[in-house]
């Protein structure tokens, strides 16, 4: 297939996944922000939301204090934030339009429908940067539904060939990045010693993390006990059955990159790098991770993940 087409499909998947993650981050932060400060702890939820989404720098350079209205507007709708939900949907649609021939009708309708809906939402809000909470809630539901629609149509309608594999590789690289980011921002509340110090104040912080990756219920099914910070780390990093864990993402990345390698009869640096990361995750234990330092572990992972993204681009997408 054309390198450009593969590149568009890969990024299309990343933008859809990113929009979904942003919607979840904002919702989780909103939930925390409505609690009395004695429950939510720090009271810096909006700062964390900015950090987790990687938009903190841009926000600080152009906006004032990090408070609900300004952060929500920046993360969800700001045209000048390259990773706002609005821009993710716009870029997703631009990529989709550039490769319409590689999309099934259902995939196109999912993305184009989201883009039309976004336009309607922006018009009805008249360009204001203030939003009615109910409207917002509908908007975030719509974003989550878009990713479900898109993902479902990829799964149900796409031929299983390189176009599918590049699309899936993009999805999991993005998802691994998102999960790692939220772990990185919240690592301090996940440290084992923290529990002894802070008691249950952090409970809501922990559940907010789980909500942001839609795994609060999954947690209970896997561990069958109350929420413990080190188990959250275990779940999000090392549990293969958890679809947003780092190891599950890499399980998939390896699978899809190998499928490409098999089909092309040739493997390259991206296959090797992905296998290395997966092997490290497979041999890791939570104890060891905490010994190295959770923060250090996550930072190294984010760098590895970024590097793999670049390698995939060089090997396949930028010819």
């Amino acid at each position, binding site marked *: *297939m*054309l*390198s*450009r087409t593969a590149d568009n499909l890969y990024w299309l998947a990343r933008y859809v996944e990113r929009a979904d993650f942003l919607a979840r981050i904002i919702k989780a932060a909103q939930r925390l922000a409505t609690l009395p400060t004695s429950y939510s702890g720090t009271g810096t939820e909006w700062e964390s939301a900015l950090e987790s989404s990687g938009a903190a720098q841009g926000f600080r350079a152009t906006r004032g204090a990090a408070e609900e209205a300004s952060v929500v507007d920046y993360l969800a709708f700001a045209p000048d934030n390259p990773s706002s939900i609005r821009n993710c949907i716009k870029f997703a649609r631009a990529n989709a*339009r550039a490769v319409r*021939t590689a999309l099934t009708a259902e995939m*196109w309708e999912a993305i184009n429908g989201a883009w039309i809906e976004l336009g309607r939402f922006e018009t009805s809000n008249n360009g204001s940067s203030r939003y009615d909470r109910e409207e917002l809630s509908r908007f975030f539901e719509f974003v989550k539904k878009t990713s479900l629609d898109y993902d479902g149509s990829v799964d149900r309608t796409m031929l299983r060939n390189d176009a599918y594999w*590049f699309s899936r590789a993009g999805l999991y690289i993005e998802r691994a990045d998102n999960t790692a980011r939220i772990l990185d921002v919240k690592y301090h509340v996940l440290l084992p010693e923290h529990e002894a110090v802070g008691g249950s104040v952090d409970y809501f912080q922990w559940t907010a993390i789980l909500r942001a990756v839609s795994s609060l219920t999954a947690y209970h099914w896997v561990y069958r006990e109350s929420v413990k910070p080190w188990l959250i780390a275990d779940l999000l990093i090392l549990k293969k059955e958890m679809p947003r864990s780092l190891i599950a993402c890499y399980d998939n990345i390896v699978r899809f990159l190998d499928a490409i390698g098999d089909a092309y009869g040739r493997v390259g640096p991206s296959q090797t790098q992905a296998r290395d990361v997966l092997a490290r995750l497979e041999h890791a234990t939570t104890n060891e991770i905490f010994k190295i330092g959770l923060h250090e572990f996550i930072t190294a992972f984010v760098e590895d993940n970024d590097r793999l993204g670049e390698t995939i681009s060089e090997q396949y997408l930028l*010819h």
Partner: protein
Amino acid sequence: MPEVSCFDEMTLADGAIRPVYGKIASWLAATPAGLLAARRAQAELLFRRIGITFAVYGEGDGTERLIPFDIIPRMMLRSEWTRLEAGLMQRVKALNLFLADIYGAQEIVKAGRIPADLVSRNAEFRPEMVGWRVPHDIYVHIAGIDVVRTGEDDFYVLEDNVRTPSGVSYMLENREVMMRVAPDLFADHRVAPVENYPDVLLAALRSLAPPAATAEPTIVVLTPGRFNSAYYEHSFLADKLGVELVEGSDLLVEDRIVYMRTTQGEKRVDVIYRRIDDSFLDPQVFRADSIIGVAGLMDAYRAGNVTITNAVGTGIADDKAIYTYVPEIIDFYLGERALLNNVPTWRCREPSALRYVQAHLSELVVKEVNGSGGYGMLVGPHASVAEREVFAAKLAHDPDNFIAQPTLALSTTPTLCDAGIAPRHVDLRPFVLIGANGMRVVPGGLTRVALKEKSLVVNSSQGGGTKDTWIVEDSIFDEIPAPRGQNHMI
């Protein structure tokens, strides 16, 4: 302007309904206005969801609009179509012979049938094409011929489009949408299908692959990119053909062979269905500032390593000045009388014609020889005095650049307008496909309709809309045989 009485394709002057519209007339009479409007809204929603939009130049980046779609089909009998089809095929056959001659021995010029300077000084003449032959001597592979009707038996060719004619995606999508919004009407009419157009096109493109190509030639559609006004159509066609949609930057030429950049390295390309104008194709040969072309493409083309459709240089055959000579072209190469009329045309390059045009500006349509899309033209009867004066100055300054035609009384067909169903002027663009495997015209075409009352301009860029075009068998209107006698008591 005096009201010209024009031919309505549904209702004759005496109020009688033409048989081909019989069932449409009853359908319109039986369907409440609200339901028609609801169906139109449903159709519009479908178009928007599918994303059939076009970009309008000059309206800022990324403006996408829908072409208005009218849900009342334009009807034609098979017998009428068969005549039309023969005329279209004759015309395209002659134009291909003309192009082979123009880039070869130029017999038609030597015979004095066409002025030499009309060829040699023509901006669309490509010296790069002189002295070598394109595969199978076919230059035009895809043609869209604009036809208008003025009476029961009167068809005129308005213009030949043999560069990169567009609109076929609307022909195909209009049909799909009509089938969804009016399934009962379809069941009643047994409409000739158009859905095989992509297959016919693919077979034609495959037949044109260079001899060096494998049994599975690689075909691509070359687009200027997603900001082009017809980008939707480019992606639509690539998708229906099952071939890659490439941009110039996806292609490269090495040792006179064209390759595309794929995730598995370079892949050889055999046939390029280009939707880029000649002048942007190859910056080494044509416009050096083209960033949408492919350097070295013409070398590969002339070496016979890749086929380009339509061939480079076909513009000289649909030039509006050459148009006036098409009946002579048909006579010269085929020894036949043209089956389809040309619109009578004054060539402003001829002094007596120019004088006539200048004296009758308010009655005539004056067009730039090289204009397209309804731009650069004056519709005399509808223009203001000031507009006519501005145009008269342009005409006097460069008469060679203009032709003039009488305003034709284009036929009208019933169209759903804001105020209800009303007659609106239409034209028709059928598409002719030519491969080494022969010539085909898919029955139907794109009907364009001028939505504004009395307007004669059907171009989508000027507020025109489209309709589905139905070719129906004459036999479906035959009287149903009366049932055998029965006793009324049953």
